[in-house]
């Protein structure tokens, strides 16, 4: 039930972001799907007591792979799918908590939270990079085998 709620809400939220970013109407459902899968991976891993950083990394990687497949299938720029999928992972909550603690003069907690938010954004970036690297490697190998 917990996972089902998360799947439905993340689907709607990601599709909503598709509307805000003016993604093509046809791809709104796919945006929602990418966001749903990414968030599902994240929340499932967090539920299994994995660290938020590791979970973000794996979720971002999953999103990037699906976006690449979709981009190839539908011949559209990859950015349409990856952006909508990444949004839920952005550590908005932690960044907010950090900001709040800064304002309340609790700098120790604030710095800790800010470092955490930074680590998570780094993990998302690395997840995207790894998938891109693998994609380029596959393309290079295919190119070589053709020669």
């Amino acid at each position, binding site marked *: 039930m917990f996972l089902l709620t998360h799947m439905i*809400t993340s689907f709607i939220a990601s599709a909503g972001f598709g509307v805000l970013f003016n993604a093509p109407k046809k791809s709104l459902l796919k945006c929602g799907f990418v966001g749903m899968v990414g968030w599902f991976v994240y929340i499932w891993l967090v539920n299994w007591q994995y660290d938020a950083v590791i979970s973000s990394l794996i979720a971002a990687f999953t999103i990037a792979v699906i976006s690449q497949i979709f981009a190839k299938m539908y011949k559209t720029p990859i950015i349409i799918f990856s952006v909508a999928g990444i949004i839920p992972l952005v550590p908005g909550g932690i960044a907010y908590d950090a900001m709040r603690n800064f304002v309340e003069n609790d700098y120790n907690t604030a710095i800790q939270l800010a470092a955490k938010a930074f680590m998570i954004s780094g993990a998302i970036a690395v997840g995207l990079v790894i998938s891109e690297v693998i994609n380029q490697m596959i393309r290079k190998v295919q190119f070589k085998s053709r020669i």
Partner: protein
Amino acid sequence: MGKEYPPTIEVIEICLLAGKIMLQGGAETYRVEDTMTRIAASLGIPHSHSYVTPTGIIFSTDGTEPAKLIRISERSTDLYKVTLVNGVSRRISSGELDGKEALARLKEIESADYTFPVYQQILAASIASGCFLIMFLGSWTDFIPAMIAGGLGFVSFLYVHRVVQIKFFSEFIASLLIGLIAYFFVYSGVGTELDKIIIGSVMPLVPGLLITNAVRDLMAGHLVSGLSKGAEAFLTAFAIGAGIALVFTF
């Protein structure tokens, strides 16, 4: 070959227009450069150089034509136009479109407005805010407050931005309003968790596209664009944070 190519000046115009639309729509810098080079190559200019930053495009061909520069002053997010230009570029590469047709099509794309109607955007923002609240483990009783706060925050962002052309100011006002509305709901007993409501409703303003783009640009070796987009994302995040923080200082 025997194929007739359009004059160089026209090719430059096509490339710059395509690049301009894509950059304004929020495409990654490396994609813009790639598209421009591809279009030029398929229209008979195999060696061209483009230098794209978030604020301007320089494009030159290896010939007698001088390099051209255009300034990009307004950037928004319009992924539909990016997709359309991408499609035009593909059709030029495959030879379906010649220079004149491509230019006409690009001009048509540039002047058209494909955005969703404003009420749909506001609806999407408020529903997304509510859904984010649930995703961040909020309780269902806060769903409606988050929807209202997120929707009104987005409305104020749109309208303040129309009056004052400074993005950071409108983001600041929007997040300030979100903070006040959330505080009002919790104070009056309708909402329960102030933090969760604020986090959920602030999400439509969060610079997710910029962050993703900045990373992709850095990865592709476009250090200047990557860093400047990163700076823009940081400023946006700072504006949102400052707006919320102001509510807490009261």
